[in-house]
């Protein structure tokens, strides 16, 4: 990166990583096209989504200006604040669709689990990177406590999707820190052992139904299996080339549920076919790849672990969402990142990308 050192690159000065930005903008633009179709050509919805995108880009830009070392210092207080807010939700939260996720702050509703999504990997990266890597076993207890408190609180809301994302981001930190394979294996075994407990004691009936539905959606085609069946029909009937933009009958005739939010991938599969879906996956892969490059080039362990965790969590979004919509994973409420209609997750994701950019552009100021 000699050229960067020699002449102050305009993007570097703005703390923007251009390749990553290009990938993000490409995904957002594609998302706008799909939402236009999925919303039934609703221009008001387009306006709102554009506004959110602009706001998110602004947040990303602002976050990118913040030195990662600042984040590191604030990691623990934000984490503790997040946990307190989660407890607040547990006792005073608004109930919406049977789940307590929202905290009414008077002027706006706020989802503390989104804050935790960001604060948690930072905290984890801060905690692990305090010690020489690979981490010794004795530090793992602390890591486990840091991980389990928010995960369980969120799972209890219940918000399975977010708790999976949060847990995954923590585990990624541990894995990327170079935890020995023996421990990785042990944790994997422990998770498997916990599954029955999860099933019998933590999961709600509707969540169990979703899992059972995944295994055999045709069992209840008009009830629990309806979403999955209609979404698979949409994707399958798209074929190789798709039915064309705005021409997907499953989406235009409203057979796909939640088609502009969580199930938007079904619209993509139907209207753009296997080719379109593949291009989307390649675009995602490009963004992930770029993220991993940024992570690898970071100069501190904290930055590396944080960047890696953020970008892999991004991948978990993609995998869980597409897996659910195409019928190989149970239905959990995870949006398709940067494409689904909606503000909260986009804001969180873009803050994450802001952190990535910050890590990538603040290298030279880091004191080794």
């Amino acid at each position, binding site marked *: 990166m000699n050229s960067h050192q020699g002449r102050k690159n305009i993007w570097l000065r703005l703390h923007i990583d251009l390749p990553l930005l290009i990938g993000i903008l490409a995904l957002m633009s594609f998302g706008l096209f799909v939402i236009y179709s999925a919303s039934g050509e609703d221009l008001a919805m387009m306006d709102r989504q554009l506004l959110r995108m602009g706001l998110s880009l602004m947040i990303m830009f602002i976050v990118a200006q913040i030195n990662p070392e600042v984040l590191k210092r604030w990691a623990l207080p934000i984490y503790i604040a997040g946990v307190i807010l989660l407890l607040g939700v547990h006792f005073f939260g608004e109930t919406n669709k049977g789940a307590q996720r929202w905290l009414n702050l008077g002027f706006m509703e706020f989802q503390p689990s989104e804050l935790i999504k960001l604060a948690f990997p930072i905290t984890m990266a801060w905690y692990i990177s305090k010690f020489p890597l690979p981490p010794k076993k004795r530090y793992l207890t602390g890591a486990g406590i840091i991980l389990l408190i928010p995960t369980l609180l969120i799972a209890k809301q219940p918000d399975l999707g977010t708790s999976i994302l949060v847990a995954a981001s923590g585990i990624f930190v541990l894995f990327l820190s170079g935890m020995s394979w023996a421990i990785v294996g042990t944790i994997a075994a422990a998770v498997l052992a916990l599954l029955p407990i999860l099933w019998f004691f933590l999961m709600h009936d509707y969540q169990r139904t979703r899992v059972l539905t995944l295994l055999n959606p045709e069992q209840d085609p008009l009830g629990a299996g309806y979403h999955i069946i209609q979404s698979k029909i949409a994707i399958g009937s798209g074929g190789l080339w798709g039915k064309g933009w705005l021409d997907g*009958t499953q989406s235009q*005739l409203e057979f796909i549920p939640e088609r502009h939010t969580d199930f938007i991938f079904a619209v993509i*599969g139907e209207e753009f076919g296997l080719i379109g879906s593949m291009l989307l996956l390649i675009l995602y892969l490009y963004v992930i790849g770029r993220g991993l490059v940024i992570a690898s080039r970071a100069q501190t362990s904290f930055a*590396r672990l944080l960047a890696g965790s953020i970008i892999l969590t991004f*991948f978990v979004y993609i995998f869980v969402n597409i897996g659910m919509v195409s019928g190989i994973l149970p239905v959990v409420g995870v949006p398709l990142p940067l494409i689904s209609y909606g503000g909260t997750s986009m804001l969180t994701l873009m803050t994450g990308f802001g952190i990535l950019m910050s890590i990538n552009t603040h290298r030279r100021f880091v004191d080794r």
Partner: protein
Amino acid sequence: MHDHAAEASLFKRRALFTFFCVVALLSVLLANLYQLQVLSYKDYETRSNDNRIRVVPVAPSRGLVYDRHGKLLAENQPFYSLELIPEKVKDMSATLDALDAYVHISADERESFLEALKHHRRFKPLTLKSRLTEQEVAIFSVNQYQFPGISVEAGLRRHYPYDSVLTHVLGYVGKINTRDRTALERTDQWKNYPATKDIGKQGIEKFYEPQLHGLPGHLEEEVNNRGRIIRTLKVVPPEPGQDIYLTLDLKLQQKAVALLAGRRGSIVAIDPRDGGILAMVSSPSYDPNHFVHGISSKDYSALLNDKSRPLINRATQGQYAPASTVKPLIALLGLEEKAITEKTRIWDPGFWQIPGVERKYRDWRRWGHGWVNVYSAITESCDIFFYDLAYKIGVDNMSRFMEPFGFGQVSGVDIAEESAGNMPSKDWKRLKYNQPWYIGDTISVGIGQGYWTTTPLQLANATAILANRGRRFTPHLLKAMQTQDADVALDERPPIVLDNPHNWEVINEAMRMTANKSRFTDARYTAAMKTGTAQVFSVAEDARYDAKTIDERLRDNALIVAYAPFEQPRIVIAMVLENAGWGGANAGPIARELLDEYMLRDTEEPAL
């Protein structure tokens, strides 16, 4: 404390490993998509189309029915209803109030509409008021702009413009019920009725149901997940049912109905040249239009329990003793069997006895007719002559001879409601009652009474065969189908061939004489006829029958058969008047008027 280089390289290895995991997992997603979008594409494409395309059947319009001159007898009338699409009406009760100023919505209609609205899809039209008058349609149409979401919808419904005049011939259509459905399924016709609401229940409407109905079409509509129609993709129009032309002559039919007004009875008129039925009346009748709109159970049970039995088609289902109207045929048999000749004379003292038996069989004229031959026996309707003749030829001979004239069997006319009547024989009585045949039974049969029963249609048909000198046609109502250029082929049966064809002339001449010396003396055409008076109630031997003192329902049935013109018969009629009394006096004038109507038209209207 930290080994930065080692940590960085450890991270890079782990990062590379996770990158490969990411690629592998994305490949799993891609493989699944390949499975859905390429390998199972056909399956999902079909299911996607099943989701969105709804096939809506369209009923064909029913074929019309005309008489032989092209007069419309059964038509399809538009009927109008007010339809309301709930989601397009913002304030329901205000709208209904405003609407009431133009089209009256009764409290009942309003209540039942609001009730139905509760279980109704908001975007589907719901009937607010049905059977609008043309005035209401006009008033609403002018003010429709004030009522978005409310519209007048038109449909077609069968209508019989001549009400009760043709009921027993045409029958009627009504809602398809379970029995109709079973019958259609048996003949594999049910598939043609996906949108049809009504089906022929009786008469022509039932008999020619397959021709009148037509074939359904369909619309392919694209619908969304809630069933709302987005657009029509394809229209396959239905194939309308065939129009049919009947042999009926509407004017003659109307005349016959008018002549029977207020009476119980039946008239059948046949064109002997082809067996086509010119008129077929059963009185009293009823308005078939009530059945099309769905008759109320109160009205229906009133019809069902009416003592004068309006629901029965007397022309084809009424079984009456033919009485003296069949004397010409008995005489014909006598001539053929050589039991009598044209010259045979017998003495009628007013009674007849089976040789060696005390019991006296009385003539209708207590003092007798004196010397009678075959001519005077027919013109004067002498009972004694026929007692004697029947005794000589025996019942089985009579039964065998009458069979080709159509007695005791259904005529095969093209309506389903038909009875066979009864032509008795010795075997028949043994089988039916397990009783031997008595000579007394034969004597009764000889004057067209006893076990012998016929329908007016059978009587007309037999008379037509007689007037035709043995040429026989299956009596029928269908003249032509719209799609065929020519009339439908006649069903001509093998003729009755007599050993001595001159016998036809003897009998027909006797009938001409009968007409000429009574009712048709002053007619401007030559007719032939024979009356009959059938006992409904057996009068005790030697007792006198007094029409004035006897209960009306026990009075004699009056009958007549007649045809004209004598030289080349164009019309044969048979008539039964229930409990009217003496045949000649009661049925005669009506037969005359009816034949006058047909014979004295300025010109015979050309049949289509």
